[in-house]
């Protein structure tokens, strides 16, 4: 690890003084101190800033110009780019962790993105809203319309989220592409983790979002 690059940045936590988001704290807990992290879809850089305040050497990729500029203005190392096209240019094993926070559902090819993440990084951390949550199911069943929530207020025709999935769907994808699940946490609408030993169907029904720590599968498909 290069000494210069691991130095923490001055600011700690979000610049606006608000407490860090629960899912961000959860992600930050999964990352070992002193590791190299790529945050894909880093937005305004809040998570990266939280990570760097904890001694992580962080890099960001963000598609929106505004997000990039706000991140760079925080002193973060963030570049403008698109997860669907730009991950291919990152070399193998260049990061300890590659994070995709609330962005999986906005990619054109979630499976390809996930495969790239575990090629570039030894581990991947993915968080996403669970479309299998009972409120979603209820809206579709009762109203017969695409669900909209406080956290996902966009209509079907103007949302950036084109590949929603449920926790069950995601687990299935991980199995298909030989990804090892090292840790999984589902959060209720208040950001509280659901019982660890609850069955998958319970998480899929009551988890509003999920955070997964993933590793490369044993069969060596990803080295």
């Amino acid at each position, binding site marked *: 690890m*290069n*000494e*210069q*690059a691991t*130095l*923490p*940045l*001055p600011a700690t936590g979000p610049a606006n003084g608000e407490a860090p988001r629960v899912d961000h704290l959860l992600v930050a807990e999964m990352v070992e101190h002193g590791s*190299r992290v790529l945050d894909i879809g880093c937005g305004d850089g809040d998570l990266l800033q939280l990570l760097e305040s904890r001694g992580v*050497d962080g*890099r960001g990729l963000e598609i929106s*110009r505004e997000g*990039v*500029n706000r*991140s*760079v*203005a*925080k*002193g*973060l*190392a*963030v*570049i*403008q780019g698109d997860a669907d096209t730009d991950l291919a*240019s*990152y*070399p193998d094993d*260049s990061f300890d962790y590659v994070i995709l926070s609330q962005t999986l559902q906005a990619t054109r090819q979630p499976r390809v993105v996930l495969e790239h993440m575990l090629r570039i990084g030894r581990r991947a951390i993915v968080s996403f809203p669970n479309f299998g949550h009972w409120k979603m199911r209820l809206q579709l069943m009762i109203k017969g319309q695409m669900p909209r929530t406080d956290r996902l207020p966009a209509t079907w025709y103007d949302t950036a989220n084109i590949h929603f999935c449920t926790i069950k769907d995601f687990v299935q994808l991980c199995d298909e592409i030989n990804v090892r699940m090292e840790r999984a946490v589902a959060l209720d609408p208040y950001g509280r983790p659901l019982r660890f030993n609850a069955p998958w169907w319970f998480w899929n029904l009551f988890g509003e979002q999920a955070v997964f720590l993933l590793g490369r599968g044993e069969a060596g498909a990803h080295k």
Partner: protein
Amino acid sequence: MSELAGITSGDGGREREVDHPSSLVATFGPDEPLRLDCGVDLAPFQIAYQAYGSLNSERSNAVLVCHALTGDQHVANIHPVTGKPGWWETMIGPGRPIDTERYFVICANVIGGCMGSSGPASTNPSTGQPWGLDFPVVTIPDMVRAQAMLLDRLGIDTLLCVAGGSMGGMQVLQWAAAYPERVFAALPVATGPRHSAQNIAFDEVGRQAVMADPDWRGGRYFAEGTHPRRGLAVARMAAHITYLSDAALHRKFGRRMQDRELPTFSFDADFQVESYLRHQGSSFVERFDANSYLYLTRAMDYFDMAADHGTLAKAFLGTRTRFCVVSFTSDWLFPTPESQAVVRALNAGGARVSFAEIETDKGHDAFLLDVPEFLDIARAFIDSAAVARCLGAGHTTS
């Protein structure tokens, strides 16, 4: 025609600056030659530079600014020839992003320039006459090598930051590639890792304009008491268009007429944009040497980091320098993909790199103008580098 035709005012200020600049000067004797890429050892030679702020006792707060094609060392003071403010006062000065109250800021006139560093307008010590085309052809790496010799002379080992736009940005990239251990942070703006075919083409138009002027006299205009003013002015006019954008020209001038309501049915400057360009051309020749223009455009044309290193990624392999690359949406001289190529190469090597594309209609020249989003990013980048550097010092002593 009046403005171009009427250029007669004296070149006294410009000519004086060539050998005896209103700047600090470092002279290098016959025993300290500058080894040029063309194979020539240039000696003796001199470098004219400006310095602002003060160097701290650890010598860790030095920032080197690299100037663009027609810039010079006068980044943040009144220009001795034109009487105008420094060319980067939006960026450099007390309380500015490159804060002269915190950093020791150095800017040197490039080798091949005409504001006091050795160049084709300087006196050739072996003849006592201006070098003219006898001056060896210089490259961007040569400019950087000369700056490194200046820093050695000043006793500055490591730079907190090297910053510059356009040709200055090329020098920033070259600094990071040639002296990675001496550059803590690099801020290349509106630049690229090579000059594109289109840019070489524009440069060639400018050079041909200069050389087609009968007053150029094969580059020996000093001896003959002429200066290819019209040729150099036309070169500047053509180049100036590439520094702007269609939208910026439209916003500033549109099709508006200059001091008249109707066309004159002549080739007078009917349109404001014509008048503006003629003014740009005529004021440029008052402060710039025509041969210098040939040499410096040539240096940009020859710049190709990928060719020099095999691949662009190899140029930056293993670098510990932190980078902030900035481009502008309306810059068609160094469009965003040129910057992205640098960013991809840096990423491939795991460098700590930020990249921002700033939305503006001001074209290539945006890096010189008051573009708050750009200045905010530059400030944040330099501030964070300064903090990291201080912490770094603390870590090694603890």
